[in-house]
């Protein structure tokens, strides 16, 4: 069965304005290509989730956006700045939570680390930092090296938010957090979005946790951006169809290229198809099948379906 869907998934997000723009961004490590001709667009004010399996290039992408990794090819603009030329300026405008859990200097206390950041971020909001310390129950007297994964993730979030940057780059922000603290984090992010005009690019492979917070999604696999779009568009156009099919049913060619996944039951088949619902249902009808039910997918299910489809490339 031919399931080429490359044409089906949109990458173009229109005219902007965009907070992050990459053109043909390529990064290689030796013979492996970590980022392959990436055209990422993060609209101003968007909460954009970057989904993809481990090793898809999410971390490398975020690092190139603040001048912590050099690109081999292509162009990058973050808030109008090329981070490779003006790294310090870019980092001043970005709240970054790195993938790893190392924070600051191992010998330093958390309290001193916050003072350090206060001294180096002119826009540091001391009151807000104090409120986050309370909300996250951060122990300021602890040494950085003695923090658990979850504790250092909280401090990293705090440092990223407290200078109220116009752009947040969060690499697995909920990694290492228990359920309660994860909930606290999501609430803090909701409030932060309400209080400060912020664009956010969040990388995660656990989409269900932040599904309700985001409004744009990009799917990254093996360094390629399979598609990026508003989550509403994904919800509207990627749907599951349950259809009764006659014996010897053949999918019409017009739909074949849009099928993301197909699960066969006894007599009915579940299809995950990309396209306008009406057109898809009509297409099924013309092929002799009766669509019994249509349902949208959660963002997590959609991401799983898109990433599992090996032909989507």
């Amino acid at each position, binding site marked *: 069965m031919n399931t080429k869907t490359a044409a089906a998934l949109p990458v173009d997000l229109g005219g902007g304005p965009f907070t992050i723009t990459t053109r043909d961004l390529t990064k290689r490590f030796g013979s492996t290509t970590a980022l392959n001709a990436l055209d990422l667009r993060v609209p*101003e*004010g968007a909460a954009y989730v970057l989904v993809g399996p481990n090793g898809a290039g999410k971390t490398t992408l975020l690092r190139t956006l*603040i*001048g*912590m990794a050099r690109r081999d090819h292509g162009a990058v603009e973050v*808030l*109008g*700045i090329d981070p*490779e*030329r*003006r*790294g*310090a*300026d870019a*980092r*001043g*405008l970005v709240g*970054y939570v*790195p*993938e*790893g859990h*190392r*924070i*600051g*200097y*191992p*010998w*330093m206390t958390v309290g*001193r*680390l916050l003072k*350090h*950041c206060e*001294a*180096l*971020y*002119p*826009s540091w909001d001391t009151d807000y930092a104090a409120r986050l310390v309370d909300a996250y129950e951060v122990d300021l007297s602890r040494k950085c*090296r003695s923090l658990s994964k979850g504790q250092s993730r909280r401090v990293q979030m705090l440092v990223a938010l407290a*200078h109220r*940057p*116009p752009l947040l780059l969060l690499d697995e922000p909920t990694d290492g957090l228990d359920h309660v603290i994860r909930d606290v984090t999501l609430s803090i992010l909701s409030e932060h979005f309400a209080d400060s*005009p912020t664009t956010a690019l969040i990388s995660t492979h656990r989409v269900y946790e932040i599904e309700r917070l985001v409004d744009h999604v990009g799917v990254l696999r093996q360094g390629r951006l399979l598609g990026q779009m508003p989550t509403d568009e994904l919800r509207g156009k990627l749907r599951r169809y349950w259809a009764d099919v006659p014996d010897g049913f053949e999918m019409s060619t017009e739909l074949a290229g849009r099928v993301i996944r197909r699960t066969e039951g006894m007599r009915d088949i579940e299809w995950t198809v990309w396209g306008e619902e009406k057109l898809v249902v009509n297409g099924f009808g013309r092929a002799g099948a009766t669509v019994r039910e249509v349902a949208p997918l959660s963002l997590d299910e959609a991401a799983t379906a898109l990433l599992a489809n090996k032909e989507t490339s």
Partner: protein
Amino acid sequence: MTDITMDRTPSMKAAAVEQLRVVGLAVRREALAICAGLALLLLLVPFVEEIVVEVGPILNPTDLGVIAAFLGLASPLAVWKGETLFGESRLWTLPVDHARHARMKVAAGWVWLMGVVSVGVLSLVLFVVLVGGDAGSEGTRWMVTDLDAVRSGAGGGVRQMVWTTPLWHWAHPFVVATWGYVAVSALLLGFKRPYHWAVGGWLAFLAFGLLGEEGNIARVTSTLDVFMGAIDWLVFAGSDYSQVTVTLESGQRVRAWTRIPTLGSVVVAQGLWMGLACVSLWAASARSRES
């Protein structure tokens, strides 16, 4: 929505002051340990005074070269402790230019190092003076006037001269500490595996001497000799390699100087070493340049 033309980087002054503070914190424990040791030494003064009966000890600034060199070589490890300079160091995520900030941090560490060396030199001078000795010697030195006569071993070829330690000698421990500090800082900033490079470099140096068929051992020792001579110039201001042991006519054996290092010769030698170290540091920190 957001004024992106707004500069959200700290001023040079703010960044420098903060680095001075943070590096001070980083080296605090080590610096305090050194100061505690010096304080202990001064507390010992009354007991030493009882032991030293006639002649007090003489402290020459060049005697401090080895300790100062060690301090300089070791202190970058304290300044950069716990930082993965080739990984996700906090420094690289901050809104500061990577290369410039790395240099700023090296400079901050140097300020503290000079502080510790000052305290060390002052304490030792104080100690020596308190126990009845002299800081900087006044007296006589043996000078070689005829090297051939000295080498023949028949005696003679030397004369005594009046010697006063010049004031500029007191710069020596500071210069040596600085050199070691800058060199090791460059090593840490420039190489992912600085220790491998340090050991590897030394072994390569020895191997260089072992090349060639004949007189391998002699070659190693002569190469080492050149190297040690160079180190001597740096650390001891040439005081060791400019001296020979002479047997006087009376049968007494003394160390005599073939030549006395002048301010000019020392400036040239140490300037060369310092220049080399500084260029290395600049190159090493440029590794993370951003524009």
